[in-house]
């Protein structure tokens, strides 16, 4: 069974692009487009990898990550964070919160795929 990637992102075009390249690579892709209930969705879906945007409506990616790491069930769940806010303090913040990998938009498709492969150690 293929591993599941949960994509939490609010830009429809980016969702479509990422879904396309990840599916083509053989991953099961699930998407979610707001921050409000992101944590519940993660708990319910138990994805092998979470791809998380920072600027989300309702709840920021940082808050989602923080809550995730506090939850014993998700402490070691791989999280790949993507953000359009490319400031170093955002990277520091994410690393402090325990992100698995941090990438800045725009990204090349191969970079994302490499990162996903690495995190799911295929």
């Amino acid at each position: 069974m293929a591993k599941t990637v949960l994509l939490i992102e609010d830009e429809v075009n980016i969702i479509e692009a990422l879904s396309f390249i990840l599916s083509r690579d053989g991953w099961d892709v699930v998407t979610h487009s707001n921050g409000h209930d992101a944590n519940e969705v993660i708990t319910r879906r138990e994805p092998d990898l979470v791809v998380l945007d920072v600027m989300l409506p309702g709840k920021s990616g940082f808050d989602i990550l923080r809550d995730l790491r506090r939850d014993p069930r998700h402490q070691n769940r791989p999280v790949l964070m993507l953000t359009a806010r490319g400031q170093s303090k955002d990277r520091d913040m994410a690393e402090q919160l325990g992100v698995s990998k941090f990438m800045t938009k725009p990204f090349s498709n191969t970079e994302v795929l490499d990162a996903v492969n690495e995190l799911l150690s295929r």
Partner: protein
Amino acid sequence: MLNVLIGVCLAYVISLFAVAFWAERASMRGRANWLRSPMIYTLSLSIYCTGWTFYGAVGYAARSGLEFVTIYLGPSLVMLGWWWILRKLVRIGRAQRITSIADLISSRFGKSNGLGVLVTILAIVGTTPYIALQLQSVTLSLGAFENSDTLSDNTAALWVGAGLALFSIVFGTRNLDVNERHHGVVMAIAVEAVVKLCALVAVGVFVVWGVLGGIGPVLSEIDASKVATWDVNGNRWIALTFLSGAAFLCLPRMFQVLVVENADEGHLHTASWAFPTYLMLMSLFVIPIAVAGLKILPIGSNPDLFVLSLPLSLEQDALAMFAFIGGFSSATSMVIVASLALATMVSNHIVMPIWIKWSEHRVREFGDVRRIILISRRFAILFIILLGYIYYWISGGGAALAAIGLVSFAGVTQVLPAMLGGIFWRGANRIGATAGLLVGFSIWLYTLFLPSLGNVYSAAFLAEGPWGIWWLRPQALFGVTELDPLVHALFWSMSLNALTFLVGSLISFPTPIERLQGAQIVNVYDHSPTQRGWSGRAAQSEDLMIMAQRILGVKQARALFQAEVQNQGGQGYLPDPTPEFLRTLERELAGSVGAATAHAMIGQTVGGTSVSVQDLMAVADEAAQIMEYSNRLEEQSRELTRTAQELQSANEKLTQISIQKDAFLSQVSHELRTPMTSILSFAQILRDGASLKGQEQSRYASIIHDESVRLTRLLDDLLDLSVLENGQVNLNIATGRVQDLIDRSIATVIAGDAAMQMQIDCKIPVDLHSLTTDLDRLGQVFINLISNAKKYCDAASPKLQISAHQSGSDVIIDFVDNGIGIPAQDRDFIFEKFARVGEQKTGGAGLGLAICKEIIARLGGEITYLSGHRGAAFRVQVPVNFHAA
């Protein structure tokens, strides 16, 4: 014999004139360095030894043994302890340019002329009998030579007095020196000092070795005489020592030579041992002469004339002549200096104030004051010597006069508490000094002076007191009967004087000038350098530096001086005290202490001059301005507080702006990167994608196209906003109807979206004024508002109502839709950049309303969100006619 005597006297006087004249000449030619030598200073102090001491000491010793020596021991102790009092007096004298003891007291207590007059009167009363005493000693000594009455005593006294007055006037009032120094007089006095010492020593040597046969026999003669036993009254011994020491400081003539004529503080160093030596030599042979006189001369001889009658009786006419000249010297030098000192006091404290008051409304010519001073001094000298002569004439030159010496001492000594208190105690003030002087002087008059005149009081008065009040008996005040009359008077006058002075100072309050003078005088060492130690310009600069440091603070003063050094192109850290620099410094100091004070301080430091009356007056005026000044200070401090608050809020604003800028950049970055991400990603997919369906390919290409358009629009908006915010926008002012503008805007929106569902209602009054403004920009705002309504209105059948009306010189256009509107909490920042309401994803970057706000502001109007409507409602208000701001 008498003719010879008078001839010798005249010759002596003429030679004195010559010496004085020559000294003045030398001084004027600037060759007076040795005139100001410490030895001359020491010798000039010898006017303490008057004719009374020259002749009278022997008489005193013949009557009461060793007691006479207290008269010399007191001044010796004062000189030996010069570091305590004399050093300070001399320093003050120079720093404050003191001209007399009355001037010192008056200066110290706030230039109080009342005190000056009081001390002057006291000095005249105390000195007049003493001058009479000198005249008497001269006439008596003349009488010792000639028993016949060829020359009446009174005539002789008159001639002597006239001669002395002439000398004093010629050499004492010839010029007006700021320092009141008289080289001619001082020189003549120094010569006389040597003459009288030599004369007395010559007589003494003659008596010891020529008459009595050596030191051993002298001692045995003393033991055999009637003064062989030491039985002095202890009270008198101590009291007289104190009295003579105090009088040494307070006698006007002594103050004149000690302080006023002092040219260099260093002279005190020499005088401090040389003058006690002089006094010791003066008294060394007194007892032997007295003993020899008692032994050799017939019983009943006047012991006061032993100095003359001993050589005469032993047929040593030349020696007697020498002794006579010695006595003559003693008497004349005292009269000259005393009359000079008193004349200075009279002219400065009595004549000048009256003259200034009298001529207040007259135009004063240059040199007028100087002329008046000289004339008044000449008359004062005449007046004082005449007063002495009259006193001598009236008292008849009897024995009563002999006792007047110590009485006179006790009188002038009343100044002592005010003087010592004044120079050592800052708390001393005018009220206390005046009260103390009056009390002391009154007690002295009552208990000592009046009784000394002989028959002023009746026997009953003396025995029972006035009106029978026993404790007011003149010679037994408060029932103190066991004291010698002199000690009694001295004890009560000095103690009550000092007590009144103390209490008066404690309970009253000094004026500002008094306090300033008090500080200047008591702390005289802090701001007046020694004369010799401060030679050279560098030292002067150093002095200025110290002063500047005290006032401006060390750092600032150093910076100031350093800057000046560089300015002058010098090295080190002290600049030359050029006039320019002094002016700069004075200005700097004036900022801290006031102009008058600064001027006075600089003057004192640089010129060694003291604070003048004018300076002091200005200081007093400044004190009056303190109130106003402090008010101004308060105002300034309030202003400062305000400024500080403004600065703080400005700082907060700046911080906020900086945070906003960061947030803005972050936002811009986000808004740019997001479409870029899609574009990049799909571009890669298309590039790599072999297995894409045609449908997918065109879809992905259109996404790339849309995101590119979004990116472009974002950049346009950002540029637009930037231009608007920086005020660089060029407005294209034109006139047009609101209706037309709105129609065009609606048409534009519809053109972008042909499938638009929204119904638009337009209610524009027909008579609405045409607008004169940038119609394109205003249309941009309308388009924005209409398309916002189109995007966000979520009603089933969306509807936008546009209405307009006139309000004064403005036109108001409202845009109200029938959607859910904007939540209250978001309304505050919808006009901010990148503001987005709710979770709507509309592809806009959130710059639209921010741009609208900027445009309307440029057009001089306002865009607001209208609450109270069900849907979203915006109001645009712009002036009918645009006015450039």
